[in-house]
């Protein structure tokens, strides 16, 4: 569980303080970390010691100790010397490693707990019990961010996000699949969606500039209780999806800011098909040429203002009017009329949604 590198660093640090050679083996006698060469020679002694009922013993000029993790033998520690000094030093090292085990387990457990919480794999009573054990506050406001990277298993991006938030141990960073990094962020009192938007921007800018990674960031609503965290996670996931369909110009999407996209996203496909058939009579708006689509989008952007739109498109007013007339002939919708404009706008969005669903099916 603890990496050998950490064990090595630990015993080297302790050797530096106590001037005693140390070695850690697993229960099969394999050397995991050592400060002196030829530690492998003691393999058989280690195996014999593992079998013996003693907790510590002097063998071949070394103090042998057992390191337990909740009554289960985890490691054997060797400390050079047979006197009281070696015994004391060995005891200190055993204590240190046992504490490391506890800390690591807690971190590992927390990570697991959060993953299960996000995926709704826990019973309500388990949430409260385990949260208490892991010292996680229940009634704190939290929000879930999902960060989608372009490349799978982007460790650079994950490490960057971890380092950004690591000083605050109350935020959790984990990954539940290859492309998504999840941040469960605890809010300070007084922090609002505005602050969360800043956090999202910070994540985006940092990943862009530091990890050189193109990412999309989405976040859910702020929840007041631990058990609701999975809801915030689902919302963030959905926001990511909805953003991809309707707001592809944005790198940050907030669930509470999805507007009409959120409504359309919830519609059953059969209903969408019916709607499109009704509006376009079997034809697809995808058949419209690029010029017409650009014109329509510009017209909407400029709040159905003919002169402003024609100015921005660098075309004569009459050209625009002609294009709108042509569109009216083919679809029966006059975009200069509010009712028709809104129908057309929604229809365009529905088509986008249907195209997205189709790509998922394929």
């Amino acid at each position, binding site marked *: 569980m603890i990496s050998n590198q950490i064990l090595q660093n630990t015993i080297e640090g302790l050797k530096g303080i106590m001037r005693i050679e140390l070695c850690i083996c697993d229960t099969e006698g394999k050397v995991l970390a050592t400060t002196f060469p030829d530690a492998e020679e003691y393999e058989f002694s280690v195996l014999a010691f593992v079998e013996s009922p003693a907790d510590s013993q002097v063998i071949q000029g070394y103090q042998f100790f057992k390191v337990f993790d909740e009554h289960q033998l985890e490691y054997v520690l060797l400390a050079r010397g047979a006197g009281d000094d070696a015994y004391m030093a060995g005891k200190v090292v055993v204590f240190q490693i046992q504490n490391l085990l506890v800390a690591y387990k807690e971190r590992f457990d927390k990570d697991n707990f959060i993953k299960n919480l996000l995926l709704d794999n826990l019973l309500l009573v388990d949430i409260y019990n385990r949260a208490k054990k892991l010292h996680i506050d229940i009634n704190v406001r939290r929000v879930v961010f999902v960060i989608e990277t372009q490349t799978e298993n982007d460790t650079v991006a994950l490490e960057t996000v971890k380092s950004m938030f690591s000083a605050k141990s109350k935020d959790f960073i984990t990954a539940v699949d290859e492309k998504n990094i999840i941040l469960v962020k605890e809010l300070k009192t007084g922090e609002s969606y505005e602050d969360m938007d800043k956090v999202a921007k910070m994540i985006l800018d*940092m990943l862009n500039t530091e990890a050189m990674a193109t990412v999309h960031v989405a976040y859910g609503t702020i929840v007041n209780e631990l058990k609701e965290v999975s809801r915030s996670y689902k919302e963030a996931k959905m926001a990511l999806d909805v953003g991809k369909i309707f707001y592809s110009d944005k790198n940050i999407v907030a669930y509470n800011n999805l507007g009409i996209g959120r409504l359309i996203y919830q519609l059953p496909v059969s209903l969408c098909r019916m709607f499109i058939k009704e509006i376009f009579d079997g034809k697809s708006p995808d058949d419209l040429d690029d010029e017409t689509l650009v014109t329509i989008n510009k017209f909407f952007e400029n709040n159905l203002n003919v002169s402003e739109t024609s100015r921005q498109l660098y075309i004569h007013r009459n050209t625009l009017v002609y294009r709108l007339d042509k569109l009216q002939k083919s679809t029966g919708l006059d975009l200069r009329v509010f009712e028709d404009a809104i129908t057309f706008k929604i229809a365009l969005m529905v088509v986008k949604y249907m195209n997205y669903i189709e790509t998922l099916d394929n």
Partner: protein
Amino acid sequence: MAEISFRNVTKTFPNGKSAVRDFSLEIHSGEFLVLTGPQGSGKATVLRMIAGMEPISSGELRINGEIVENGKPEKRNMGMIFQHYTLYPGMTVRDNISFAMKLHQEPEDVIRRSVEETARIFKIENLLSCYPRELNELQKQYVAMARAHVHQPEAFLLLNPVRSLDLQARKKARNRLKELQEEIGTTLIYATDDAAEAAFMGTRTVIMRRGRIIQVGTAEELMENPCCFFVAQFMNEPGFGSGEVRIVKGKTAVEAVADNFSVDVPPEWIPRLEQAGYVGKRVLMGYTVSRPSDEEDMGCELLPDGESRFFFFDRETQKSIV
């Protein structure tokens, strides 16, 4: 040092919104270029396209003469500081600067040398063992710049980098940036939505609106000879006023007359207005009141007569009358 060239580049997002349109610009090697324009004018997208974060939809983007393919930002080696930068809170300045290099598994001695060299350039050697919480905002900014510089980027891309600083610190940071650019001679593109900042930098400035380049020139040129109403207003804010006037030729002077006031048209404008046939017609007039001479002094007062600047534009096209 990178030479960057855009030819008719457009960026249209899949949802039909276009962020950059018909963008053509040559950025010379070692140039300090300012990109300005209101929010949403496409500055950020231009920077992101250079960095490789945003694929271009059409046109041609060359870096050092070679057409770059979309994607692979890590291959372009651009140093970036965007507005919402942050330092890793749990790491010392040294680790902050070297973190990305460590992640990319560069050799230990290369990292150490680069960090020390960079710290020397940015004059932050004495901060290397500090944590971010021990630094003031300006020092943090220097660390962020050092972090962008440590891997010897081809060019620096900065997007509203000094926004989080107070006025005093902003000024210092910008001065340092100018010095640094001269020292290291890297191509530097500085995007800001604050015209005063663009004016301060005093180098070639590109002003954008709705994804298009409107005018290119030094900030001074943009302020004094704007090509259209938008540039005049953007570059001369705060302290820009405008209104419709009628140009009237009297016996002694040419006047710009509105309902409740009239002013003499400055002599340099008279031939222009006459030649273009605007005498007796209505035009759009813009005028400046004094710009705050220094940033600390944000108050504006009307300049004494003669120091105000006047501009005249066609009412329909909003273009400057020439």
